[in-house]
């Protein structure tokens, strides 16, 4: 493997890892703070991708505007879903959370099939991000993938700032460590949950919208990504955003380079990584000991 190929694969790994991070951080926040295991998180990614497919003809080249509109729609959807379904799950056990969110997946997938059909659709890369740049020699790298990585980094930094530097973030962190105490201090915990959930849905949908031009949109795209997100969360440690970041990048590298070196059994690599982490640190890399 020459240096150019190696560099391209590294960039791909980072880009894939960062995209996973957007998804996994929402999942881990929702679990860490509300104690809800959400199987439908992959559906929000799928919804985001189909939103990009539906909205891109309307917005043309105003790609950023489209992302903004999509995020707003997804946040509203998340807010409503929390109100209608998820708010009933906080006091229930995990089994019922698994069931209800599994039911939601079936509903979302079937609605998708009714509204858009079961075909694979491509989403156009916006003209101003089309093309690629040279990495020296024969290798080149598409601008859009670089943009995707950059967008994810911006979002990660923004999320870090919100969680660690704002009043809302303070409430979120407090809610994660002691729910009853936060309620006792007079903070409207139900509203806080609703905001966090809407934020998680918006992040997942955004990840879907960003990846749509690279991966095209197809049925069941949510399920496969959900399971990879679970692997990320298990490796990183539940409730830890830093852990999710480290684990996402690890998974990104293992998966990408696994495809290069062991094409046939590449699907297994990340699960072996998870097994190693479970033997070494069952609570995850950054998880708190239980």
């Amino acid at each position, binding site marked *: 493997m020459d240096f150019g190929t190696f560099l391209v694969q590294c960039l791909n790994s980072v880009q894939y890892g960062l995209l996973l991070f957007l998804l996994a951080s929402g999942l881990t926040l929702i*679990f860490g703070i509300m104690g809800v*295991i959400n199987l439908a998180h992959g559906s929000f990614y799928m919804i985001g991708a189909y939103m990009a497919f539906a909205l891109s003809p309307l917005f043309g080249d105003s790609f950023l505007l489209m992302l903004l509109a999509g995020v707003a729609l997804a946040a509203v959807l998340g807010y409503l879903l929390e109100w209608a*379904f998820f708010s*009933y799950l906080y006091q*229930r056990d*995990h*089994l*019922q959370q*698994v*069931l*209800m969110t*599994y*039911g*939601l*997946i*079936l*509903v979302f*997938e*079937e*609605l998708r*099939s*009714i509204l858009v059909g079961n075909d694979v659709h491509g989403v156009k890369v916006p003209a101003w991000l089309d093309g690629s740049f040279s990495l020296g020699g024969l290798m080149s790298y598409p601008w859009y993938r670089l943009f995707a990585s950059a967008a994810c980094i911006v979002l990660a930094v923004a999320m870090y700032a919100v969680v660690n530097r704002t009043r809302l973030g303070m409430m979120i962190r407090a809610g994660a460590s002691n729910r009853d105490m936060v309620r006792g201090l007079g903070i409207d915990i139900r509203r806080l949950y609703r905001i966090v959930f809407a934020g998680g849905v918006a992040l997942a949908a955004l990840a879907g919208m960003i990846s749509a031009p690279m991966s095209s949109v197809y049925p069941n795209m949510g*399920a496969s990504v959900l*399971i990879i997100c*679970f*692997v990320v*969360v*298990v490796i990183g440690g*539940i409730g830890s955003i830093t852990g999710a970041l480290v684990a996402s990048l690890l998974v990104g590298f293992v998966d990408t380079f696994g495809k290069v070196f062991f094409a*046939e*059994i*590449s*699907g*297994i690599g990340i*699960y*072996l990584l*998870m*097994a190693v982490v*479970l*033997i070494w640190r*069952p*609570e995850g890399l950054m998880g708190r000991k*239980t």
Partner: protein
Amino acid sequence: MSGAAPMTSSLPLAPAAPAARLSRGLLAPALAVAVLAVAAPFLGGYASDLVVKVMILAIFALSLELLVGMTGLVSLGHAAFYGIGAYATVLGSGAEGGNLLALLVLAMGSAALYALVVGALSLRTRGVYFIMVTLAFAQMAFFVFHDTKVGGGSDGIYLYVRPSIGPVDLENRLVLFYVVLAALAGTYGLLALIRRSRFGAALAGIRVSEQRMRAVGFPTYFYKLAAFVIAGALAGLAGFLVASRDGVVNPELLSWHNSGEVLLMIILGGLGHLRGAVLGTVAFTLLKELLSTHALVGPLADHWQLSLGLVIIGFVAWLPRGLVGLVQRLSPEGSR
């Protein structure tokens, strides 16, 4: 999570288990088996096929009930053991078919072996972690069969000649019916015995409060691992039967939708009851048939997953204790 159990709840250790109660609990299932055994030769092709399908799924559901209902371990990757049992059956049969007993041991053994590995790793975690880890390892097994040439890739492989031993030849549909019925009765009986044994009491104790069981001196990890391996082997039995019935296996057997559906079946029936797992399997299969029948639901039949999803959501909202719970609520006498 384990600290949430109320202090007043007593451990269900060492229940007085007089033989009378054991036999009373098994009376209705024994009757059902007898009725099916007598009726088998008179069932039409479609009805017979449907009953066999439900019985195999019931074995699969019962094996998961041992984990979820009896031990309190929510596994979302149980289809892996089912699929591995099925693949082992097909891969172990040559072009001339194989010995039924040898293949049965092979199927249950491979499933148990994978359960041992997955259980040893995933039982290091608990609660929501355990759900995610079991799902992930099941997905890994799915990818092995889907992406590699081991089992014919995504198309799966055919079983050319069904297993047989002496006069017991599974090519014969009636013989298959009786073998599946015997397997179901055996699984039910085994689990009923486990429930009433010291081992089963320890599992129930772990479900209520693992911390307390550890404090009393039980090596809870090994108890849970044993339950996980037994459940895996029984799922392998169901896999052996489904491969013998269909004559073909494909990676979809291991898909996580299968794991989700079997979990749904035992919850639909009502956790903590063996007959709940069987009733839930029957109810779920009928529900699926009903929701996809044009004559009954009209054009919605093409979108049965939508109706199924809505039914599941409504079910969690209104019937969290399952059908057995509903029966108990309607008849105050019928506790247990």
